[in-house]
């Protein structure tokens, strides 16, 4: 009888240790998921900033060739200024989408100016911006996967109890309206 009681005592201690272990693992897992989201967002943000930094170069280049397309260039300059002010992720997503659309307009108008289209600087900028767009799309997918994992985890049992205790709330996705994130397609014609 004493052996049975001692065994039950040890088993009880073991169960308490296992529960503490699971709570610790859930907490560490949530921290890991949050860090993944931060890292994924930082990797997108750096590309968004790089794209914004290239726009003034593009505007100056196009101005030199397409003197009468002021409205398009002013529009992209204004959109760039708004995008730089954006803080929250939904605002940045909206800004990013607007930038992509404006860049599309600029590259479309370049079709009317063969000298501009043939310019090496222009081609280089166009290629760089296309690469950035593709990378943003891929990193956005990874970021949204990370957010999905986190948002699902904080709602599932038993993580939901730890998440509620720590007051963790769902994170925003980086959503782009319309075509669900396919990158801006830019055709480069080599003269």
């Amino acid at each position, binding site marked *: 009888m004493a052996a*049975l009681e001692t065994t039950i005592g040890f088993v009880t201690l073991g169960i308490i240790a296992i529960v503490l272990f699971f709570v610790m693992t859930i907490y560490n897992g949530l921290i890991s998921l949050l860090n993944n989201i931060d890292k994924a967002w930082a990797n997108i943000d750096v590309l968004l900033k790089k794209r914004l930094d290239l726009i003034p170069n593009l505007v100056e280049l196009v101005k030199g060739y397409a003197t009468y397309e002021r409205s398009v260039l002013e529009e992209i300059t204004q959109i760039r200024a708004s995008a730089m002010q954006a803080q929250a992720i939904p605002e940045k997503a909206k800004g990013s989408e607007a930038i992509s659309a404006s860049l599309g307009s600029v590259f479309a108008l370049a079709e009317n100016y063969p000298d501009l289209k043939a310019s090496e600087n222009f081609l280089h900028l166009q290629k760089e911006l296309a690469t950035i767009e593709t990378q943003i799309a891929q990193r956005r997918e990874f970021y949204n996967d990370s957010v999905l994992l986190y948002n699902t985890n904080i709602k599932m049992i038993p993580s939901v109890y730890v998440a509620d205790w720590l007051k963790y709330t769902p994170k925003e996705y980086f959503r782009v309206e319309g075509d669900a994130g396919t990158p801006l397609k830019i055709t480069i014609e080599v003269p």
Partner: protein
Amino acid sequence: MKRNTSLSDSDLFIIYAIGFFIGLLLIVTGFWRYLVVQKLKNTPLSKVSSASVGLVALAGRARLYQPQLSPVSGVPCAFWRIFVSYYKSGKNGGWEGFYNAASKLPLSLEDETGRIPVLPEGATIEIPSNLSFEGTLSEQGLVIKKPASMDPRVLKFIESLDEKTKETFARYHEENIMLNEYVIHENDPLFVLGSALPAVGVAGLADETLVVRQGSSDSTMYISESSEAAFMNTMSGHMYIQIIAGLALSGICLYLFLSTGGN
């Protein structure tokens, strides 16, 4: 409880104590697997081109980074591993490994967005055996105990080893040995969970930005030919078996240990 007259109380103590600690070991390794499964669940699959520094999970196809042939079967491969064990007979018998060698060259993982080198050193590699041989080495050469045709490739492999390693093999010349060769062929499906780190200072990877390898702060490194989901299911299955078996074994042994102590 009826006393087992062939074993004394002290023998039983030792057996139950060993059983208890084996049970604890199973529990600990089971929980360690649980931590790995959690890492796997919490790491979304990356594309190669968007892999960044830190723990990454990648899926794609194996590609040769440098051409190499597997030592026994002689097939072109991205990675090879040889594991040789002998059958230890007796009370605590079973297969015991005595030779373990693996390719140290990097391999590549390729998906639709690009390629990234992978260093397999230190990784837990879950791939099926490409070649399995069981037989006996004798002083006259290879004597086949099993009704299987002689595999000259295995003999050729052993003869190609250095003298010190041959001496190791010679120590087990009377035993039943099993040789397994594991190979990742080019174009085999590949899943990797490891640390993406700058390739600076890694020999042979001067042109690369990142390499996936076992990290110093996070030693998680797995390479598997299964998909991520299948790999996770396998790990989860092993985890449950180890934890449940460990709990049962340690609980029973603890109870018997305490019961025997009371008699």
